[in-house]
């Protein structure tokens, strides 16, 4: 599987399989967890320092709940791998990156050239998000 | 009869399956019988049509008449702008829709 994962991290891929959110909250010595769409990512906040991988599932690419899950986790200080999995398409990946996802396990292969163009197309952004991009209001006012 | 319609992918024009290709004129529609789904799938995959669907229609002296008003409006054009319809010179064409 690992070769199908697109990563934007320098550390080694985490090998432990992700357990479900309920299983994690039951036994909680796992270091990888999977959050389904509709599950409340805030339940993970007390455990973020012991997690190395959080996988957020996108059952359909139009289901945008995972974007909020990612923001919530990053805003709570999660530094580990945050992976978008499932129906992840190239045209959604820029916003996913901006929401804090740094790895992707798409159901269907992604064309690397299209992805590269998509991620680098916009020179500026309007909002602060989970990435390092500086919003234009900050550029305007120094 | 069953006929197959959709919109041209690149232009959006309303098109009708003629048995061997697509026409902008409903009167050139072919009866697709039970083959509509299969043709629709092939043609959509080949990107010759967008959103194909099968409709009921009847054949009368005026040509082929889709059963539902929506498809008659598609076949002709907006009833409020008959000057933009496929038959701008025919003042009676609006009554065909209703």
């Amino acid at each position: 599987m690992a070769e199908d994962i697109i990563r934007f991290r320098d550390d080694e891929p985490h090998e432990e399989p992700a357990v479900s959110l309920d299983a994690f909250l039951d036994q909680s010595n796992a270091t990888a967890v999977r959050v389904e769409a509709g599950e409340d990512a805030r339940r993970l906040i007390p455990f973020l320092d012991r997690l190395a991988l959080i996988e957020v599932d996108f059952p359909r690419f139009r289901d945008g709940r995972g974007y909020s899950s990612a923001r919530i986790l990053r805003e709570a200080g999660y530094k580990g791998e945050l992976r978008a999995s499932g129906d992840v398409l190239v045209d959604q990946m820029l916003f996913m990156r901006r929401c804090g996802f740094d790895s992707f396990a798409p159901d269907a292969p992604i064309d690397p050239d299209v992805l590269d163009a998509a991620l680098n197309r916009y020179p500026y952004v309007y909002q602060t998000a989970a990435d390092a991009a500086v919003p234009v209001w900050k550029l305007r006012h120094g | 009869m069953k006929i197959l319609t959709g919109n041209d992918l690149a232009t959006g024009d309303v098109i009708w399956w003629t048995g061997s290709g697509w026409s902008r004129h409903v009167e050139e529609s072919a009866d697709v019988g039970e083959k509509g789904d299969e043709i629709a799938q092939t043609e959509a995959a080949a990107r010759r049509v967008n959103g194909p669907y099968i409709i009921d229609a009847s054949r009368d002296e005026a040509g082929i008449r889709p059963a539902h008003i929506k498809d008659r409006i598609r076949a002709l054009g907006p009833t409020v702008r008959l000057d933009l319809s496929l038959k701008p010179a025919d003042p009676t064409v609006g009554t065909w829709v209703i």
Partner: protein
Amino acid sequence: MYRYDHYDQAIVDARVDEFRDQTARRLAGQMTEDQFKPLRLKNGLYLQLHAYMLRIAIPYGTLNSRQLRMLGHIARTYDRGYGHFTTRQNIQYHWIKLQDAPDILAELATVEMHAIQTSGESIRNISADQYAGAAADEICDPRPWAELIRQATTFHPEFSYLPRKFKIALIASPTDRAALRWHDLALRIVRNEAGEEGFEVFAGGGMGRTPFIAYPIRAFCPADQIFSYIQAVLRVWNSHARRDNIHKQRMKILVHDLGHEEFTRQVEEAFAHILTLGTDFPRAEYERIAAYFAPPPFETGLPDEIDRADPDFALWVDRQTAPHKAPGYAIVNISLKRVGGIGGDITAEQMEAVADLAERYSFDDIRVTHGQNLVLPHVRKQDLYAVWQALDAAGLADVNLDLVTDIIACPGLDYCSLANARSIPIAQKIAQRFADIDRQLELGELKIKISGCINACGHHHAGHIGILGVDRKGTENYQLLLGGSGAEDTSLGKITGPGFDEDGIVDAVEKTTDVYLRERQDGERFLDTYRRIGVEPFKEAIYG
């Protein structure tokens, strides 16, 4: 008005490039229609009955002459010589080719326009009071905040795949000209006791098959925190809305299901958190934007008198102009509701005529209204006669603002793939029935709103008289609603009873107005009489 700097321009240019690439990939078969559809919708491109339809954003309904001329150019070059203004102050073209769409966007970008987020499950173009900056009754110009919110909600990475569309409206007057509380998020600029500007917030409004009037959820949000607050609302909805039934995914359904108290509690919890993240735009950015909306250099010492010798002109002045905050100026309403025409439609030549007038007489400023008309916001009263003559020459001097022939109607089954019945022919028949101007003036303010299906794009829930077209066993059928309002006295219309055919609905409207004329008391509008006497006398007249 606001002008792009190189940042804004670079973002819009990148969007053109992105859509060109997406379109090419679709045409080359690298994307399915299911994958492409949300992408084209986020760019305002629908597949309608006869062609693709492109909806172009007119942020808070403000245009300059260069932009309006470009819209005329697009009508002529890529469409069939006309466009259609919408109830959310945008413009749409009904005969667009997918293969042309990237070029159209590129042309729009040259005049600081785009089609970003004009459809799809995204934060839509923000709408606002069309009299902003001119209205005698506004507490401030709402457009700087509207522009700030436009930027903040453009390509928002967390909220671009929402459960459904999300519409924001913003006003700063006690008079509501923007159908405020029919929006998902409704903002009214108010001042608190300390005199500070902030926002009164309403949430969960919307029409469609399950209409709700937005609930008040916050009496005062400090102005500089509004983006945090909007994000809090969106996060609660995005996280918790249903995703299993497209008809239950609008925010109004969540607000209703949770109850507005619980919804408000969750928003406040999220707001407290998001405030700590530093995402709000600083005051300096507001001030930068506000500088673009400084009042134009109004002349002083202008006369307020208008020469009313020409009776046709006097009639037009009385109906189509509104009080301006600056002495010697007036707000001019241009009707796009000619009897026999199509409401909201405008030809390329008419766009150019209005652009010329705006440039010459209105500080290069044009507004699009929620009622699908146009406004020249800043006209010297001494120029009104010349403006009227020029409008008349362009076929734009009709007198019917807020009268029975000033009908809002959706495109309906003549154009729209969702519609069940035609709307425009009904509007035309009603307008013809009531064409006599004396009769219209006798009836006074009377807002008729017609939708061709339950999605309610023609705002039938909010019409003093509403009409809803349905498909009854393959034939068009029209239901009558009474008592709705999209103004500050917002209310939801009620269906009177069984529906009618095309001629029957016109008769029913006329009988409804007859009851009003019989029952009204001094100074009562139709809506006031309806509210006082209730639906029964009307039902008796219509069905009795």
